[in-house]
């Protein structure tokens, strides 16, 4: 049972990490706690659902849905935040704008599509489980693990191995200086929105696939855990998000499995408080907050 519980914890943690990747990137670079992020997550899942219903296989629907969510993110980020960014509005107004925006988006989506939970067509991904001794892992879960690892690797490579990554990091460090050095910050911001949106969309598809429940509000229910992961991991810290996500998943599962399922959240959030109490910039955060 311990082995299966560990696997459960790692898988749950991987979904948290997967969700938090784009969220932490968006915050780390654009310095806006962008609450619309959850909407891009829902949008990605719904796009993939629509495409698979049209008969597209999941390996094609996944990247297309991620791309679609990325485009949606660029558009809404531009509409909601461009003006605020230009006048250098305080962070709180940006936060409230994205809060208002995301509530409007969720309601609009719900009144358009209805609140019902939808499923991907059966057989989109094999329901078979792999047995290793007494442990069972399904195909969707392996996909999530693989995708999370791959995306973290790709993101780190992008950030540290390309000119775009350099520009984004420069912007995260000091936007004004980056602009003076000839970096097109508007374009870099749009790129960050796009990448974050893609990550959110991909996360939505994979997590929707695993729990097989897709609905307009699915992003909202992930947001709270997303916050914990990016704060504990250190805002804008990709490796931190991965580790914090895994840690949160394992702690939740272990508490539910060996202490009490009723205390699962109490323990997880108590740890959040304890971490911030001792390390205000996150478990893996350095004194300087913003890293990408």
């Amino acid at each position, binding site marked *: *049972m311990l082995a*299966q*519980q560990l696997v*459960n*914890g790692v*898988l*749950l943690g991987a*979904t948290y990490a997967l969700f938090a990747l784009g969220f932490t990137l968006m915050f780390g670079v654009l310095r806006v706690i962008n609450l619309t992020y959850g909407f891009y997550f829902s949008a990605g899942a719904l796009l993939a659902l629509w495409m698979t219903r049209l008969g597209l296989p999941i390996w094609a629907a996944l990247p297309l849905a991620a791309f679609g969510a990325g485009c949606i993110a660029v558009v809404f980020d531009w509409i909601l935040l461009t003006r605020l960014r230009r006048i250098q509005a305080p962070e709180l107004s940006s936060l409230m704008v994205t809060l208002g925006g995301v509530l409007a988006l969720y*309601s609009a989506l*719900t*009144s358009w599509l*209805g*609140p*019902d*939970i939808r*499923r991907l067509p*059966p057989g989109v991904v094999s*329901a078979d*489980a792999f047995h290793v001794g007494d442990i*069972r892992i*399904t195909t969707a*879960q392996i996909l999530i693990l693989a995708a999370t690892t791959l995306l973290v690797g790709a993101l780190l490579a992008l950030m540290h191995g390309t000119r775009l990554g350099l520009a984004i990091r420069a912007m995260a460090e000091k936007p004004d200086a980056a602009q003076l050095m000839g970096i097109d910050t508007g374009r870099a911001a749009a790129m960050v929105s796009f990448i974050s949106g893609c990550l959110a969309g991909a996360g939505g598809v994979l*997590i929707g696939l695993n*729990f*097989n*429940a897709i*609905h307009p*509000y699915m992003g*909202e*229910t992930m947001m709270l855990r997303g916050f914990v992961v990016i704060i504990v991991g250190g805002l804008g810290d990709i490796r931190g998000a991965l580790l914090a996500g895994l840690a949160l998943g394992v702690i*939740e*599962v*272990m*508490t*539910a*499995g060996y202490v009490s*399922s*009723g205390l*699962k*959240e109490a323990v997880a959030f108590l740890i959040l408080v304890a971490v911030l109490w001792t390390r205000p910039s996150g478990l893996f955060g350095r004194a300087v907050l913003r890293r990408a």
Partner: protein
Amino acid sequence: MLRRTLLAAAMTLAVVPAALAQAGAPIQIGAIEILSGPNAAYGTAIRAGLELALEEVNEKGVLGRKITLVIEDSAGNKDQAINAARKLIGRDKVVTIIGPTLSNEMFAAGPVANERKIPIIGTSTTAAGITAMGPYVFRTALPESDVIPVTLARAQAQGAKTIALMYGNDDAFSKSGFDTMKAAAEKAGLNILAIESFGSKDTDFSAQLTKIRALKPDAVGISALVEPVSGVLLQARQLGFGKETLFIGGNGSNSPKLGEIAGAAADGLIVGSPWFVAKDDAQNQAFVSKFRAKNNKDPDQFSAQAYDCMHILADAIARAGAAEPEKIRDALLATSYNGVMGPFTFSPGRDPASTAGVVVLVMQGGKFGLAP
């Protein structure tokens, strides 16, 4: 002379429309349901049932007047439910309120209506203690304590001796259903091996299920709303639960959405129900076909309960002889109505009096059928 005639004519003109308005003005009834947010499915199902019944009632009218239904959205939020009740009573001058959708909303809004002496009737609030809030609080939903024992008796007939219980710990409906299930299981002599809880918005139940699977119970009873129940079943199958475990649902599982969301994973689950879509009495069949024609889908239990409730209320207003809250309350208590749920009367405690209509359903191929 002319002046006096003119004056008299003017007065008549002024008085007559007012009198007409008195006779012809619609009777205002309020409803508070969840129409937005994650639990909107329940509220929209209820609204569909209410509106269908309202059309039928208004074809003939009540006391020579039509009924207007003012529906407020509670979004599943207690405070919003309280505000909705205040608005309906204060501004819309409703004579009765139907709803709210969830038991915990009823615990918030019920006292507001009771204090203003406006009858409030829950169509879907099955938690214990609802009608104990006061003499104006009614419900037409069978409380879970009447339904669960019937379901558990069926499980025992199928050979279940041990059971594990799971429940959503953050809404009154699921928690109260669990309390009832636990009490009924103890009373029935089932051996309870484990009790696990989860949040109603959770999507991961792997830790709880892994623990339960190691204990190998004959049955697993789940008290929660349909979305988490679906999630539990999907994940249970992933973790290797097979046909040897009998899944038992509480009232929340009694929705066609279970099959739509969980698909084959839900096969074999049994649930007790005060109503079933394929119950073949003429009145029920007429309701189902009208509902299909209007909404393009099958009604669920929530629509059926709401449909009956609207008719019960219209019947009470007609017998009350006046659209006044106090008289409606007394008329409701004397209800004897034959609806799609079966014969209906209120107990002196304002709960449904009879459990004769309870049926046990089993999920097969994504659809509920009557258990053999």
